[in-house]
């Protein structure tokens, strides 16, 4: 009997200690949790809530509750679907090309050559360039009257590339690729440096051509970094705003109206907060699903050295 009492006392003591440890743990994550709550969870909940109300045409009249029907109507609208499609196109234009270029430049700069540091600095320099600066540079380069790129591309005079429905989105994509190349280059360079030279020496002796070495040794060992770049790149291209705002404002005729710019126009130009909230929530849902799918399926093909 006393034995059992002792055991329960011990048990109570242990559980009290566990409780105290848990409390300390929660206390430690509290600052992060609070920050997230204020800046992420609350706005998210608020956006979902806003999406249930139709903003009235006149700014003086109150919004009316319409429930989930607004979600259905916005998601099926051609304006929303059009902007989603252009966002997907934008991601397709920017991401594979951006990552391929990043790897190519990193491979070039990985050579042991005199003065290669100069190239490393040049290749990574766009990291230090803001979107606004990059956009203004390209805006000038693409100017139909004075732009060097317009001149080279034979598009001198007329309305200009950025006003051409066919070329506006590709042009904005090129600017985004250029702007992001520094980041991708640094990522890929770091990953390349982590690959032991002896592996590539071994592959050379084993008789692999340079392409074979790249395909069957370098690329698989880069795959975790490529995967990371894809996830970050998709999220980035779904959130691209600055270059579009500066270069085209969604034009010509909505040809560069990507989802985030559509949300911005709905909310801050047309003052339709309800519509903007719905589109934001859907954008969030899309990014969540895309990321989950990537982690679930793409990661299987990724090799992590342990």
């Amino acid at each position, binding site marked *: 009997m006393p034995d059992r009492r002792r055991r329960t006392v011990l048990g109570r003591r242990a559980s009290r200690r566990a409780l105290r440890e848990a409390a300390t743990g929660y206390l430690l994550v509290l600052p992060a949790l609070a920050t997230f709550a204020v800046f992420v969870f609350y706005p998210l909940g608020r956006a979902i809530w806003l999406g249930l109300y139709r903003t009235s045409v006149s700014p003086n009249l109150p919004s009316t509750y319409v429930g989930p029907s607004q979600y259905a109507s916005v998601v099926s609208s051609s304006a929303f679907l059009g902007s989603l499609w252009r966002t997907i196109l934008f991601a397709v234009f920017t991401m594979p090309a951006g990552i391929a270029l990043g790897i190519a430049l990193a491979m070039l700069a990985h050579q042991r050559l005199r003065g290669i540091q100069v190239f490393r600095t040049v290749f990574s320099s766009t990291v230090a360039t803001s979107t606004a600066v990059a956009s203004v540079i390209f805006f000038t380069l693409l100017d139909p009257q004075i732009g060097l790129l317009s001149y080279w591309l034979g598009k001198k005079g007329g309305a200009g590339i950025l006003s051409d429905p066919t070329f506006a989105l590709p042009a904005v994509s090129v600017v985004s690729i250029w702007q992001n190349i520094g980041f991708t280059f640094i990522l890929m360079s770091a990953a390349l440096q982590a690959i*032991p030279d*002896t*592996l590539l*020496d*071994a*592959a*050379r*002796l*084993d*008789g*692999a*051509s340079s392409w*074979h070495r790249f395909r*069957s*040794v370098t690329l*698989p*060992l880069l*795959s975790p970094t490529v995967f990371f770049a894809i996830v970050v790149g998709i999220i980035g291209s779904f959130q691209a705003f600055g270059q579009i705002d500066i270069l085209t404002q969604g034009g010509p005729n909505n040809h560069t109206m990507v989802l985030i710019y559509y949300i911005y126009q709905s909310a801050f130009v047309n003052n339709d907060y309800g519509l903007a909230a719905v589109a934001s929530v859907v954008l969030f849902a899309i990014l969540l699903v895309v990321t989950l799918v990537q982690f679930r399926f793409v990661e299987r093909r990724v*090799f992590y*050295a*342990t």
Partner: protein
Amino acid sequence: MDGGDRPPGAASAISLEGITKSYGEVAAVDDLSLQIDPGELLVLVGPSGCGKSTVLRLIAGLDEPTAGTVRIAGEVVNGIDPKDRDVAMVFQSYALYPHMTVARNIEFPLRARRVPKAERERSVAGVARNLQIDHLLKRKPAALSGGQRQRVALARAIVRRPRAFLMDEPLSNLDAQLRIEMRAALVELQARLGTTVVYVTHDQVEAVTMGRRIAILDSGRLQQVATPAEVQARPANAFVAAFIGSPPMNVMPATLEPGEVTTGTQNAGRHLAVAGGVLPLTGAQQAALGARDLTTVLAGIRAEDLQVDPEGSVRATVSFVESFGAERIAACRLPATGAADGQLVMVRISAGARAPRTGEAVTLGAHAPASLFDPASGARLDA
């Protein structure tokens, strides 16, 4: 320095002729000539940074020499791509492809050479059975022990039956026990395959036990190429004397005694004065010294050629006695000659003899002639 006693030519499996590899001002390999016979296991040994791995990379074609000629099976391979030299290399880090299974790793050189699938599978299975790793074929390298990785690396080298294996410290990442086992396994495997092997190591014990001939390298220069026994008995210079052997040869400064001395059991004759006493000289040594008009030399004598002997000619104090199983080594300190402490000299205690106590004053006798080296160049005087 000459690489061997045969002329360079087509008879060698690998032949290096006057190889130099410079990085800027620094010569990693300096005018090296070396012939390696077909089917030979030659060990290239030297302290770290002596250029031995560079020699391997030059043979493999991973680096090109600044000067000199590399021949494989008589054919000049300078400028020829590594894949066309038909040599395989085993790296210290094993360099297994971490994202491929063991089977894919072993198969890689065959795939790269577009060997048909059926033949690939047959070869991989055969080599895996040979090296007893057939149960590991589906695993990734991360799931293998060091010894298993070592075997996979060997299998990958063997599978395409190259003209030569280049092994760069392949055992140095293994624990001591496994290293000894793998050493024997490698020697046995080499004998069975009959393939030429150039084996690089910094471990002189490994070199002496594995190589039929060993080549000693220091600061990019070849010091000596000979059988282990020859290297131990007649080191070509003071560096080799101090590098090879456990314990290494005792090398001490000595001066030629002006007159003849009679010491204990030794015959009267000219002697070398060392700290604490004298060492006898042979007639040939006296002639060699006389011819060069030298009065100061470096005298080298192995622990097994010294003994604690009441009749001995060198006074010393026992510092400590080390016991390695059956063998005992006494470290004896010679009397101090200047401000510094006296030199420590290793002496093997013969099997039946009483081990001296620490602090005991003893006399040491030499029962074999010392090796004499030029004090300036370190070169052997009676070569």
